[in-house]
């Protein structure tokens, strides 16, 4: 394998020779392409999956540097917000302004205050100003188009009033990658039938009287789908990580986790009691350095060798839109005898020709990834998480998992939704959705980049983060888009770094080309109004020029 990486510009391309495990041309030609081919030819748009030598583009990711003026202005914005925050706090302390927000019922009784006032400085003075862009309630199925309940605030977001009306908007925020969030269709009908047959819940744990036949069926089906020996399913994706990592790792082990890992992974690592180090995001050289140092020196103080080393990565990172470097990870893991835990919360169903996730995307061998983890919330429009791998691993987890022994087993309609969508995914309907998603993703990303916006991440990832930097622009972007009927998700500090506030679009297979075009028109308008075209690498252009 020849890898050339240009670190300075944050653009890395990996050139790979084809391995025999990669699907051959004939196999790909047999799949359902004709329908999509015509549309694509019409739109003059190339889809890379057809071509074998597009393999080198599997790993192409771009993270353009922050322009200097944007960084300065962002810091300035936060400084001004802080100043105003202190001013308002001062006014509130001296009773010139009334204190809003709830009051401690124990306040007058000399209890230790429940919250430090500096901890809630951010909440009081910055978050509350823009609270209306978060936690928006919806009143319909979270599909490609949905209804938001309208709410207004008379007192600058301290309290809300519901007007009773709903706003119709295109949904670019929900995790509905394959479009299975539907209220009609085979999945919904099966779920309804399962409620009639099994009731809504089971009220007991899996190890006592709570394992139904459909649990066994789901786990079998999932194992077959992923080409692994065995799998186990849990009722909550977050809990799958935080309650099962302590089973796999313990004191005396070392965990190397990517710096952008999700909170559930970090909580699981902390609860396990193992030592951990973070390596720079997707940086395989840093990882190799840390692996070598770990094996050579052992535990930092006692120098005892580590019992085992586990590398924890995610398939698609939800805030960055980047994909983990699986081929290099597998190589490293084999070379240094470490174990690999891959969290495919966002990538299962959404990536790969058959929807099997990152392993499928790179054409790697599933036996090389020791622990495959994923969730059912995103691509399957249900709830819950799973872990898949060898039978010995899954049996051990069954015996010792906190969730298996103490948490209620999954309810029937949730499991039925997963089973129905899995079955659909393996048939022609599934292939149609997978290719529709890939097509939508590439189209949307390409247009954004061509317009001159800074977009992070891999070309093929359906998570599309677009950088906005300044907190006020973030808020304005969100509100302006909603006015135009597009619902987006904007995130700032503390979910991202202080400078990198962004809007994150989640593309779905249910989005039609028309919806994406409407969204792009609005982004073009709003982007021009508030000057979001930061990119120096790509020329800024209006949509009508493309």
């Amino acid at each position, binding site marked *: 394998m020849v890898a050339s990486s240009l670190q300075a510009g944050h653009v890395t391309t990996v050139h790979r020779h084809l391995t025999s495990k990669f699907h051959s041309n004939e196999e790909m030609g047999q799949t359902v392409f004709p329908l999509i081919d015509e549309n694509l030819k019409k739109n003059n748009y190339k889809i890379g999956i057809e071509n074998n030598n597009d393999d080198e583009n599997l790993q192409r990711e771009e993270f353009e540097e922050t322009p200097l003026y944007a960084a300065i202005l962002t810091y300035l914005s936060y400084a001004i917000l802080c100043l105003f925050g202190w001013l308002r706090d001062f006014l509130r302390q001296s009773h010139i302004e009334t204190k809003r927000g709830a009051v401690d019922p124990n306040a007058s009784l000399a209890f230790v205050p429940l919250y430090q006032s500096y901890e809630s400085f951010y909440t009081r003075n910055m978050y509350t100003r823009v609270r209306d862009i*978060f936690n928006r309630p919806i009143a319909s*199925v979270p599909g490609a188009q949905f209804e938001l309940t309208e709410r207004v605030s008379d007192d600058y977001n301290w309290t809300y009033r519901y007007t009773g009306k709903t706003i119709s908007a295109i949904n670019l925020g929900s995790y509905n990658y394959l479009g299975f969030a539907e209220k009609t269709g085979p999945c919904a009908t099966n779920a309804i039938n399962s409620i009639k047959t099994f009731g809504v819940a089971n*009220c007991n744990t899996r190890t006592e009287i709570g394992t*139904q036949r459909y649990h066994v069926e789901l786990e079998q089906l999932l194992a077959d789908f992923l080409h692994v020996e065995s799998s186990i399913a849990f009722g909550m994706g977050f809990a799958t990580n935080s309650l099962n990592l302590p089973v796999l790792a313990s004191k005396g082990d070392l965990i190397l986790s990517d710096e952008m890992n999700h909170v559930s992974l970090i909580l699981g690592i902390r609860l396990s009691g193992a030592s951990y180090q973070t390596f720079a995001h997707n940086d395989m050289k840093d990882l190799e350095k840390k692996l070598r140092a770990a094996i050579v020196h052992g535990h930092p103080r006692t120098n005892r060798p580590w019992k085992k080393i586990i590398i924890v990565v995610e398939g698609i990172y939800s805030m960055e839109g980047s994909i983990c470097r699986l081929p290099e990870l597998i190589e490293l893991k084999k070379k240094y005898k470490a174990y690999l835990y891959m969290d495919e919360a966002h990538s299962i169903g959404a990536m790969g020709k058959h929807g099997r996730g990152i392993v499928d995307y790179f054409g790697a061998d599933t036996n090389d990834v020791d622990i495959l983890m994923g969730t059912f919330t995103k691509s399957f429009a249900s*709830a819950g998480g799973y872990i898949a791998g060898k039978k010995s691993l899954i049996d051990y987890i069954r015996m010792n998992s906190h969730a298996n*022994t103490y948490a209620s087993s999954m309810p029937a309609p949730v499991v039925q939704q997963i089973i129905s969508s899995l079955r659909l995914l393996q048939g022609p309907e599934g292939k149609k959705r997978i290719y529709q998603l890939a097509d939508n993703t590439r189209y949307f990303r390409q247009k954004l980049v061509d317009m001159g916006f800074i977009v992070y991440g891999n070309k093929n990832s359906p998570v599309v983060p677009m950088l906005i930097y300044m907190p006020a622009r973030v808020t304005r972007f969100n509100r302006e888009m909603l006015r135009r009927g597009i619902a987006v998700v904007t995130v700032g500090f503390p979910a991202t770094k202080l400078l990198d506030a962004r809007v994150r679009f989640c593309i779905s297979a249910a989005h039609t080309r028309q919806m994406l075009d409407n969204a792009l028109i609005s982004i073009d308008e709003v982007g021009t109004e508030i000057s979001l075209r930061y990119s120096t690498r790509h020329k800024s252009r209006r949509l009508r020029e493309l």
Partner: protein
Amino acid sequence: MGSSMTRGDIENLATDFYGLLESFKHAPLYHISFEIFLVLAVIWLVVFRKPRPIEKKLTEKEKQDLIDEWQPEPLVPSVDPNHPALNVRVLDGIVGKTVEIDGKKSLNFATFNFLNFVGNQRIADKAIQAVQKYGVGSCGPRGFYGTIDIHLELEERLARFFQCEEGIIYSYGFSTIASIIPAYSKRNDILFVDEGVHYAIQKGVEASRSHVKWFRHNDINDLERLLAEQEVLDKKIPKKARSIRRFLIIEGLYVNYGDICPLPRMVELKYKYKYRIFMDESVSFGTIGQAGRGVTEYYGIDRQKIDLISSTLEYAAGSIGGFAVGSSFVVDHQRLSAQGYCFSASLPPLLAAAAIEALNIMEEDNTLLFETIMEKSKRLHKKLLSIKGYIISGDEISPLKHIRLTHAFNTIGRLEEIVQFAQTRDITITVARYLNDEHLLPEPSIRLILNVEMTDEELEFLCAVLQEALVKVTT
């Protein structure tokens, strides 16, 4: 005694000293500064410099050898195929008052289905309507379009049921209390926790990294002792003590023991020692109290005095998820700081709809349902006590009881035999399962759970079977 210095000696010393000073005056500047520097260097070496360990510099070859030689442990140790978790009974159909296993129906005394809402037609209908309106999943966390209006309705209804200001719901019962505790209690704070709390609370306590002081299960005197000790420590560091938060973590009705906490005295102590009470009412919600409002209603204590009541929708309410109710001041904090709330997908709307309907049924019935379950619990308790050879653990009004054999006999093997025998007689009961890393592993027991719709004959039948099983096992 000692050396006597004559006047002459002193004069000599003085002249020598004077001569020394004179020589300093005449010495060049660089000489003096160099001397001062040397003196300072010596002082620094002696006082400040720690001896550095001699670092081994390994050659590349040695490093490669170490890497080649290192052998990790297998990812998981070998597994015993006879472990009970790998050989569970597989069910079919609705797990209500009866449960079907391998084609045979049996009476269900094992699942937490206190009010028999599993399989309830009204609840099923509402859940079906929710699927027809919202689909199955919510496809997002609460912050990003995962908040559905039905969640807001459920939170409001729960707050109203408990007569509190605000409620908040979670999508998983285990994660509820395990996310709540770390949201309030940080590294420097103190948690007074009952030893017998269930595993989820133990994990929450662990995740918070606070100082934990365990007191003996339901032993109020032990708690007072710990509080008094802490007070003594506080007097020594008054300034720091003013910023250490204290919390008491208890359950209303303990899942592992079946007994009720001594709440009135704990509330008294709260105002004396200034701690906040977080009470987990997973089992007591919907089963204890005239209207099912839990232990506070049972004791007649004002619910405003408890800072936070957390519970689960997975037991009496017959759905999935968890919730917490309390004053807005306390509950609202979780919306930004509880990890299981902010970073996890929200509850599927059909489960929220089922919970709302369950609340409707509970509110309509108001007292009949709860009087019935308390009455039947008392009757079951009396019947169980009359079987000689079993030790019954749990309050008489508790619908959850633990049965053990007398001391020497009480092993998991024998209890499993009893369970298997009961299964052949069409009664489904279960041995309570725990993981080995519990803080205080309870003694092996069979956990009996009463379903409110069990008739007297069925309770009699249960006792008869238990009696027979006892005979079979102890001969």
